[in-house]
């Protein structure tokens, strides 16, 4: 099936209502929309965070996200996929990332959205630097995020 895919990496905030409306617009085939929204937390890895700077590798970012989304499309019947990742300076409670997936069926939408987030966490070239009371600290990659992709099996390894 043909999947409609849209991927953005941007400094600007995004509007979830607008993105959700786009998933529904002229869409009579899909029974399920799942979305994930990632926010800046006040407390991370035990540190009191006041802000976050997101660095990325511009030439690679959208390509890496596109490859993850393409992998998801080979595994599940998906209708529309929207990925937005912000870069630059963010503040507490700001939206960082958004992944929305629509499908005719619930299981595919849930699983694909989860898959895209797990691989985004491991393979998309973004790095977070937190502003904290103790200074600016690069966030460590977590073992649990690495383990999260194990559940998807070997065929997803790039």
């Amino acid at each position, binding site marked *: 099936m043909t999947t409609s895919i849209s991927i953005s990496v941007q400094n600007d905030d995004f509007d979830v209502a607008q993105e959700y409306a786009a998933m529904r617009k002229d869409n009579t085939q899909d029974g399920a929309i799942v979305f994930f929204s*990632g926010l800046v937390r006040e407390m991370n890895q035990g540190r009191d965070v006041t802000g976050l700077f997101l660095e990325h590798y511009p030439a690679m970012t959208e390509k890496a996200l596109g490859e993850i989304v393409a992998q998801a499309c080979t595994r599940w019947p998906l209708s529309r996929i929207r990925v937005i990742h912000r870069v630059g300076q963010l503040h507490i409670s700001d939206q960082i990332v958004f992944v929305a997936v629509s499908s005719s069926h619930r299981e595919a939408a849930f699983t694909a959205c989860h898959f895209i987030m797990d691989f985004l966490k491991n393979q998309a*070239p973004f790095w977070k630097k937190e502003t904290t009371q103790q200074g600016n600290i690069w966030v460590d990659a977590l073992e649990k995020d690495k383990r999260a992709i194990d559940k998807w099996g070997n065929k997803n390894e790039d």
Partner: protein
Amino acid sequence: MIKVLFFAQLREQLNSQGLELTLATPCDINAIKHALIEHNSQWHAHLSQDTILCAVNQTMVDNRHLVQDGDEVAFFPPVTGG
């Protein structure tokens, strides 16, 4: 000529956004790391961290990947987006 890029804490540790290397190609990623350490011996510890990831032409590769003349080679720590 090979274009080398560094990101995030590795960029800060090396105090460099990247540089251009002239090397006999094809060569693997380990050969590029050796050339970078020859260029600046203080980079040794940072580039030897086994967590450092590498992408060639914006695709993740392992240390045995063969680099061609004109490739873009990026080194960076584990990613932490999302």
